[in-house]
């Protein structure tokens, strides 16, 4: 049912764990659907230098989290925002139709984390202004 790549990422997920002092955090999904994902990013000079995640969810959710975080590590904010769930699923060797939403969740998680980072930056600027 799952591709070999999905199972590899599920077995040994990359970038697992809570991050100390992240630049941005994205929390998506809800336990009603059985999936919840928190993405942490560290940004320096517009580049995502570190990324990690915590996921409550199925095999596809965990593998999508792992793959997505891999894919955006070292990328610029703009590059990361351009990442689509389709790309994540493709890199994973495909996902069962019923599980495609897990890759959407991961994409949303990254967007949310970047949004959070931008908001924080905005706030910092505002604070500096004051």
């Amino acid at each position, binding site marked *: 049912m*799952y591709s070999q790549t999905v*199972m590899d990422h*599920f*077995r040994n*997920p990359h970038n*697992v*764990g*809570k991050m100390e002092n992240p630049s941005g955090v994205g929390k998506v999904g809800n*336990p*009603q*659907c*059985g*999936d*919840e994902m*928190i993405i942490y990013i560290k940004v320096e000079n517009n580049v995502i230098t570190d990324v990690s995640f*915590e*996921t*409550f*969810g*199925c*095999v596809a*959710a*965990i593998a999508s989290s792992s793959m997505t975080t891999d894919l955006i590590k070292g990328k610029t904010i703009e590059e990361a925002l351009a990442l689509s769930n389709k790309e994540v699923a493709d890199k994973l060797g495909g996902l069962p139709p*019923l599980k495609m939403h897990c890759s959407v969740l991961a994409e949303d998680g990254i967007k949310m984390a970047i949004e959070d980072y931008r908001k924080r930056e905005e706030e910092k600027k505002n604070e500096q202004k004051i």
Partner: protein
Amino acid sequence: MEKSVYLDNNATTKVDKEVVESMMKYLKDDYGNPSSLYTLGQNARSAVEDSRKRVASILNCEPRDVFFTGSGTESDNIAVKGVARRYKNKGNHIITSAIEHHAVLKSVEHLAKEGFTYDIAKVGEDGIVDVDHLKSLIKPETILISVMYANNETGAIQPIEEIGKIAKEREIYFHTDAVQGAGKLTLDVKKLNVDMLSLSGHKFHAPKGIGILYKRTGINPIPLFHGGHHELSVRPSTENVPYIVAVAKALEIAYRDIDEHRAKQTMLKERLKAGITKNIGNILLNTPDNSVFNTLNISFVGIEGESILFSLDEFGIAVSTGSACTSGSLEASHVIMAMGRDHTTSHGSVRFSLSKYTTEEEIDYTIDKVKSVVEKIRKISPYK
């Protein structure tokens, strides 16, 4: 994968060797059609009628009240839809419970489209039907109550005798989906006070694709199939002779050795429960004390069941999360939800279901692997 520990016997079971042997003759040599009048056909006929008698003796009923069908789902559907449709002039209200298998629940929902109304009896936190609530749902136009004997996910045993008594007093037809009771609890239909009872072969070491329906003489469900005169027209189709022989044999074996099975599996289930409880924190038991001896359902709080399932599969251990029969949907188990658990807990429920083939060594191996798997997945989870 070297090891293979099958702990999903509520989903399906391994066909017993004795059962396979019993049916081979009818698969290979005595292949006649039981409706055919010549010797080859009559040999098949005898096998079918002999099997019917064997089943009847376990159900404590007349052979003519035993019908062979193509599955548990089919038996449930004949009973529920067939009786509702036949007796709709007597009333159009049906009562069932919140924890039924979809074969019953979806049948009732479908009947609603045909003009029936229904109510759903609640269960307590223990997953056992609240009989007072059920009683309060009865109306003058109630014609049918359908409540399962033992739940497939939690193993909780339902108060069938008691509900049967109430149904009888009110002259309401009473059906029980006893699919998960076979080989574990008595199937004496008189003791159980039931008018109809459904069984599925593959839950007690017969093959998949054979069901049994008991219905009391005098109840005449409108059949789902129309066709020939087979099974008194309740279920026309050329009889599946090998599987009919197999299901009768399997039922016989199940009750022949039931004391032994009960003793051994009760012990193993307790061992599994103790092992998990001692070694793993933050769990929630979904199986009450009053449950079938082979089933243990536990929620591992903070993690999701599918990821546990696939991780255990790596170690050759087969378990299920929610009902195997309801996979294909992404909803949390309606059974665990009905017990008042929250979504996270429901998604984290894992069912271990044993059989006569389960060994102590397998249980110890499972405890060990569940422990490491849960620890590993919890590390990934935001809920610790």
